């Protein structure tokens, strides 16, 4: 948020920081300036706005009306399912209910007589419906061609309300899928209320532990790009087939690509004086 046009008197009270321009190097809220030792009004209001957006993202309802036709176009079949958590309040207090399918959802799945498939994809609101609204379709458009290139068959897609990660397990199991991909709205950060997370599970079935999954996090335009996330996912799918497992057994070798270098490059604190 930009400063308005402060009066001369108001401006004189605020001490700006000459290192403000280092904000090009990080999304962290550095160089905010100060009034006395406190936060200037503009920075305080900007924070409140971002917190409000993150809160709204948590409580926003999933727009299933808009998403279902988009999914219908991309999958052989699209299902609309609900967890056992009735509403957002119950969802926040009872994570266990968000991991289980409602009775209706179980019935609907039981009625499906599709052939076994390679990949089951679940699109789940999680803690940020906004992340699903903004990232789900563009990410799928990057990921589905990768899945096709690997020669893998797609099962029905499930759009799930009030769901947690583990709800992909009973769904993948019911759809007789060899692997499951859960796309879920991540816990929103102040600067990232729209972040999509991806959980990959080989041989999904109820009771899988989190250590048996691989996670790709922070998928959004200002974080991990769709194409990069899709390539990482393809890597996981290839490796999991070779290993017959996912999770800790499947080490992400992209760690070698650290952006850190030797810690000196770009580190102005360690420049010669």
């Amino acid at each position, binding site marked *: 948020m930009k400063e308005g046009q402060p009066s001369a008197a108001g401006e004189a009270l605020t*001490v*700006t*920081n*000459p*290192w403000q*321009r*280092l904000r090009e*190097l*990080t*999304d*962290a*809220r*550095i*160089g*905010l300036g*100060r009034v*006395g*030792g*406190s*936060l200037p009004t503009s*920075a305080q209001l900007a*924070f*409140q706005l*971002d*917190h409000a957006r*993150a*809160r709204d*993202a*948590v409580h926003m309802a999933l727009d299933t009306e808009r998403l279902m036709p988009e999914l219908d176009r991309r999958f052989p079949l699209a299902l609309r399912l609900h967890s056992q958590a009735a509403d957002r309040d119950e969802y*926040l*207090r*009872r*994570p*266990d209910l968000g991991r289980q399918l409602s009775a209706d959802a179980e019935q609907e799945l039981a009625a499906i007589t599709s052939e076994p498939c390679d990949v089951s994809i679940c699109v789940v609101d999680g*803690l940020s419906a906004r992340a699903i609204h903004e990232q789900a379709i563009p990410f799928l458009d990057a990921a589905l061609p990768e899945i096709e290139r690997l020669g893998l068959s797609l099962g029905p897609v499930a759009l799930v309300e009030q769901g947690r990660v583990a709800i992909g397990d009973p769904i993948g199991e019911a759809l007789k899928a060899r692997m499951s991909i859960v796309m879920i709205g991540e*816990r*929103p*950060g*102040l*600067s*990232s*209320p729209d*972040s999509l997370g991806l959980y990959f599970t080989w041989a999904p079935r109820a009771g899988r532990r989190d250590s048996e999954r691989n996670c790709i996090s*922070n998928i959004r335009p200002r974080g991990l790009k769709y194409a990069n996330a899709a390539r990482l996912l393809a890597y996981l799918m290839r490796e999991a087939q070779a290993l017959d497992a996912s999770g800790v057994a499947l080490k992400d070798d992209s*760690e070698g690509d*650290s*952006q*850190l*270098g*030797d*810690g*000196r*490059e*770009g*580190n*102005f*604190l*360690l*420049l010669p*004086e």
Partner: protein
Amino acid sequence: MSEHVIDVDGRRYRFDGLGALLAAATPHRSGDALAGIAAASAEERAVAQMALAELPLATFLEEPLIPYEEDEITRLILDRHDRAAFAPVASLSVGEFRNWLLSERADGESLARLAPGLTPEMVAAVSKLMRVQDLVLVGRKCEVVTRFRNTIGLPGRLSTRLQPNHPTDDASGIAASILDGLLYASGDAVIGINPATDNTSTVVTLLKMLDEVISRYEIPTQSCVLTHVTTAIEAIERGAPTDLVFQSIAGTEAANRGFGIDLALLREGREAALSLKRGPLGNNVMYFETGQGSALSANAHHGLDQQTLEARAYAVAREFEPLLVNTVVGFIGPEYLFDGKQIIRAGLEDHFCGKLLGVPMGCDVCYTNHAEADQDDMDMLLTLLGAAGCHYIMGIPGSDDIMLNYQTTSFHDALYLRQVLGLRPAPEFEQWLERSGIYRHGQGIAFDRELPPRFQHVLGSRGTTELPS
């Protein structure tokens, strides 16, 4: 298992075992409700507190909440218990112990002598009978001082952990937050990075970088990269300049197994850090983080309430003479601490219990965006912890951790607290701040638009050669 029975106004209440009594007596929080062990009604809670008040403190020595044979934390607690230190309160009930703590008999000296005689269960029990003001008052009486490259926890002092996290561990991004923090007088507890990855070579690089910054600017503080203890040991073996070894810990053996640790491994980590002999002022080389709810989330809570289990984590901490311990009170989410009210009380309980056990407590005053909490709640907890003599809080640019996606206290928050309560940074660090022209006690930040001389070259090069202004 003992049954606890109490009659109140002609009605009989039964609590099936010590653990059930403690859980029922705990002020309401979502995590205990989630575990199905909270009091069934407000009345049951109040009655449980009455029954708990009658209980002799010594009961906790005779009746372990988790069997001795099953749990190495129980063994640690009982094996280390100092009967002689316990003597002054040995005949008291939990309720009488509350009175004792609030009385003049309890002062810095007597509480320090008592600490080895107290078990986590005793301090957790008494905390359940206390109001916020009791937790503040007794917390403030406790004196715990630790040293590495400076002195943390002296009366009238408030330190900060400078937390320059970056989602991809980008060196210039981290450096930008470090500079921001130092120029806002932050970083005397530690400059501590949560790395985005547990990859050992990344950790080694970050440790070298922090070491260079600290020695280049001659900052009397210590560094830490908050990675798993096994990674830290590996980094030390690879020659990384390691000040503090970090680990998240919990109050049961099973929960610690979920973290991939046990007491033997922590001992190994401490010995590795001690072998480097890097602390000129002292040998407190460990940094621990805790938080209510961690045992339940690891499905390792043994039917006990999350606050009692949290206190047991402090028994683990004190075994290793840490420099820093902080509860990350609002991080874990609303299923454990639902709103600002629950987070505030939990933060004060944790500080109280840790201090009473002789642990150098700080607090990550924080919340996530799916909790019913906001900056106003954090201001209340922050101010209360300042009054309670909390050793340190976190410091992060504008309260926004862009790597961990939660809000904690800012550099500005620490300046506020120092100003309102007259608190000062750690003495060695304070002198450095004054020498460097950054901060002076009573005056606040000592420069305006022009950077202190020591830091001018930094911006000059950045500003003129690489970044358009």
